[in-house]
């Protein structure tokens, strides 16, 4: 079973839910940190790394100007305006390139080849048999999805039980790249106007992706009832409510697993997992 933990609004508790769900299930689980711009899941598992961080690249075009006759086909084809043709000089803008390979195919002279450009790393860390696969995007790289795909590929390469993915916040390309292929999505929210606003956007997203989903309300006894009302009206299942317990935030800020610092919360996460199993 592949379960993704997403949200609309950032800071609602995705990582809290993902790492604690993973911890209560233990060695049968692979936890994928797909928030590659700011991975933090590994901080909660003080285990040793297996193997070195693997460099991840994506292909960008390189033009052989000796072969190029300045026809401009590559520039006209490019959806992302990553190539500018001036006479026989072709300027490539790697930061705009999406790696589709189209320019290479339409070039009548075969003057374009792909060269790898580094975007970040993927590494696997094991703690008590639980695998945490972390993607880490290099500073200054604008595009996350290619690295997220690399994280997912690396994880699938090893035989394991269930997979939990900690998604980035929001509803843009990095999130959809993470959620694609999931069996179930947990949307973590908070009972505030911002929480509700962004939750409705996230719900729209998972419905568009046709993925089964449920909601977890974090800091549930703070704020107001609008999120519960919204879920009721929309027939959305609320699978768990985590109380607004300051000790939870304190444990998180120390990089401690909630289910270890406050073992009374183990049952909440065990029940949440069982409910997800039942729903998907």
């Amino acid at each position, binding site marked *: 079973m592949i379960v993704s933990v997403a949200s609309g609004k950032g800071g609602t508790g995705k990582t809290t839910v993902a790492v604690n769900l993973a911890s209560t299930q233990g060695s049968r689980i692979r936890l994928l940190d797909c928030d590659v711009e700011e991975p933090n899941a590994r901080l909660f598992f003080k285990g040793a790394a297996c193997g070195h961080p693997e460099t991840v690249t994506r292909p960008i075009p390189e033009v052989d100007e000796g072969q190029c006759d300045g026809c401009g086909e590559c*520039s006209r084809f490019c959806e*992302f*305006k*990553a190539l*500018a*043709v*001036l006479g026989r*000089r072709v*300027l490539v*803008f790697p*930061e*705009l390139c999406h790696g589709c390979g189209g320019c290479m195919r339409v070039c009548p002279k075969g003057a374009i080849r792909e060269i790898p450009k580094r975007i970040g790393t993927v590494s696997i860390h094991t703690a008590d048999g639980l695998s945490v696969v972390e993607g880490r995007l290099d500073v200054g790289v*604008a595009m996350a999805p290619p690295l997220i795909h690399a994280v997912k590929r690396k994880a699938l390469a090893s035989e394991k039980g269930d997979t939990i993915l900690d998604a980035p916040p929001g509803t843009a390309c990095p999130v959809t790249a993470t959620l694609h292929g999931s069996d179930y999505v947990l949307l973590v929210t908070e009972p505030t106007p911002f929480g509700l606003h962004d939750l409705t956007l996230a719900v729209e997203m998972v419905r568009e992706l046709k993925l089964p989903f449920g909601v977890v309300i974090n800091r549930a006894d703070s704020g107001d009832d609008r999120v519960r009302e919204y879920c009721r009206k929309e027939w959305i299942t609320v699978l768990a409510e985590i109380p607004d317990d300051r000790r939870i935030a304190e444990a998180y800020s120390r990089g401690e697993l909630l289910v270890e610092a406050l073992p009374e919360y183990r049952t909440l996460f065990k029940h949440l997992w069982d409910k997800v199993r039942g729903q998907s």
Partner: protein
Amino acid sequence: MKIAFSTSGLTPDAPLDPRFGRAARFLVYDTERETYTLIDNTQNLSAAQGAGIQSAQHVAASGAQALVSGHCGPKAFRVLSAAGVTVYTSSAATVADALKAYRDGTLKALTGADVEGHWA
């Protein structure tokens, strides 16, 4: 020589558009013949990215050797300088005012982008 001006209008009395990549059109003035042509740039108004790059290609293809606009970003500047187009900035109100300033030699030529890129 030909000089390109970013503009929202159709004649030299039209406003000089302070934006380059998202300008509606370019007025290319031929100083020898004292005539001008217009290059439409409207397809770049709604482009998701690369508007500066595309606009720069249009200007280069027109044969202009100079461009006058309000600002120039890094990707547009890279294309324009590769094409040998000198980039000037001006806060003149109209294309005609900017042309006069160019002829008076009061316009500042850029040695690099004067604003940051919008996307990456």
